[in-house]
């Protein structure tokens, strides 16, 4: 007991030294802006004239705006589809590649490629793909006998949101890479032992790979959900919130308020977006467990 304390105190100056650079950067680039954001959320400010304190009125005006309500709902849909579609897809592909089939390195690189392309270019391509006059999505559907599904994907009330989310979440490169990197640390001997015991591949994945990877999967899932919650570029470029306000998200709503020089409302939106993220992620962690970056198993 006392030796552990002594060890900790001896290491303390090292720990402080190690945490210092990150702390300095975080204070300047996160803490200061967040304080600014929170203060601003109680102000009315057009970016030119002096700010004036307005209490909670930014927040109350947000909640009475039906477009804002839709944005929250859409953010949740984005987050859940990241957790329930994007991550399982990434996991599946990572598990296939982790068994190192022929050409797996080639596939890994290929699957990561879309993440290197800028969102502007991807959005341009998907807008063209979904276009009902000259797009290929409808042509594809017609060719496989599903012509009745053909539509103006981004211009119809029901299909626009799923179409936008699909165009973003179909690319799983980041999360595949994270999970794949996690599989490297699993010793091959685990599988060999299991095989001797007669476990089939499904059993091996379920009882060996997944438990070991749980922490990494939660990490990947947390990032996927966070990205999904804060994204606005894809929505901005694909539909700009349309048609008929079916696809707005909070990030876009915030950006629009900045452009409209209502910085107070923009800040309030930002604050609520962060709170929503904390809420969603802690909910997910309750279900799937914590990322084990600070797990108690260590030391």
């Amino acid at each position, binding site marked *: 007991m006392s030796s552990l304390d002594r060890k900790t105190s001896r290491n303390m100056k090292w720990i402080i030294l190690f945490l210092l650079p990150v702390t300095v950067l975080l204070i300047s680039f996160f803490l200061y802006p967040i304080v600014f954001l929170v203060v601003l959320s109680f102000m009315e400010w057009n970016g030119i004239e002096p700010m004036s304190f307005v209490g909670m009125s930014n927040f109350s005006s947000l909640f009475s705006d039906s477009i804002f309500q839709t944005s929250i709902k859409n953010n949740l849909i984005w987050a859940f589809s990241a957790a329930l579609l994007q991550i399982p897809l990434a996991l599946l592909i990572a598990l296939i590649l982790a068994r190192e089939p022929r050409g797996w390195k080639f596939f890994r690189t290929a699957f990561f490629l879309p993440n290197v392309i800028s969102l502007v270019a991807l959005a341009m391509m998907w807008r063209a793909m979904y276009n009902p006059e000259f797009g290929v999505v409808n042509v594809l559907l017609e060719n496989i006998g599903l012509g009745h599904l053909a539509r103006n994907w981004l211009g119809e009330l029901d299909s626009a949101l799923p179409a936008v989310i699909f165009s973003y979440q179909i690319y799983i490169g980041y999360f595949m*890479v994270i999970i794949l990197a996690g599989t490297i640390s699993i010793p091959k001997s685990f599988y060999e032992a299991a095989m001797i015991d007669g476990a089939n591949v499904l059993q091996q994945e379920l009882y060996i790979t997944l438990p070991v990877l749980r922490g990494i999967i939660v990490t990947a899932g947390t990032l996927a959900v966070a990205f999904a919650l804060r994204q606005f570029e894809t929505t901005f470029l694909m539909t700009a919130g349309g048609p008929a306000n079916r696809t707005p998200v909070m990030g876009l709503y915030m950006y629009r308020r900045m452009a409209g020089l209502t910085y107070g409302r923009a800040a309030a939106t930002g604050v609520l977006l962060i709170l929503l993220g904390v809420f969603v992620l802690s909910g997910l962690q309750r279900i799937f467990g914590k990322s084990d970056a600070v797990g108690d198993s260590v030391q």
Partner: protein
Amino acid sequence: MSTLQLTETHPALKAAAKTAKWAMLIVYFVIAVFPIVWLTVSAFKTNFEIETSPFSLPEVWQFQNFVNALSVSGLPQFFMNSIIVAVAATGINLLVTSLASFAVSREQFPGRKIFFTFTTAGVLIPIIAFMVPYYTLITQLRIYDTLLALVVTYSAINIPISMFLVSSFMATIPGELEDSAEIDGCSFFQRYAKIILPLARPGLVTAGTFSFIYCWNEFIYALLLTSSTSSRTVQLAIRFFTSQFRTDYA
């Protein structure tokens, strides 16, 4: 699904699983590679062709497009700037986050979990909300319109993600290795540099990839925090061309 592969006793199922696995890989390969192919072909088309028949091959292959692209004055410098910014920002980011991740994931100290939670909560922040504070900060640091402004900003913006990834990977390293090293007389710093850092390589590579791609593609803050041609990055040169699609209305 490959995971449905069963043991030798079910050869038919095994064959089916193998087919499904390869079908999956090939379908996803098409999905993943299509954007690159589309962009490459589009690079040879006129804007009019891209807008009116985006999925056909160009009628005349427009090599002129590349001549135009290369003729943007200062393109080599933009490339150089992008490389400098991305490498430096990623380097600084990995250095500082690996130090902090080591402390957080391998050591015990009061406030450890709170530190980690607050650091990584940064992944939730819509960075676009910080335009005014970042601009103010950078001008007050008197580094407006320098590459350093971008290096510092980018390395900071990516801290939450890198902390998340690097400490997750560091946490999976078995503790025994470190314990024996400590018994052998390794100092705190040596444990970081000699034991944990090499073993956390997959995490560092992943975080570094994220950071590098972010720096390479970032546009909004590059536009905001630099102004003169000498400190601009390649994304701005690219916009000289992509913005044409938006100049149809002035």
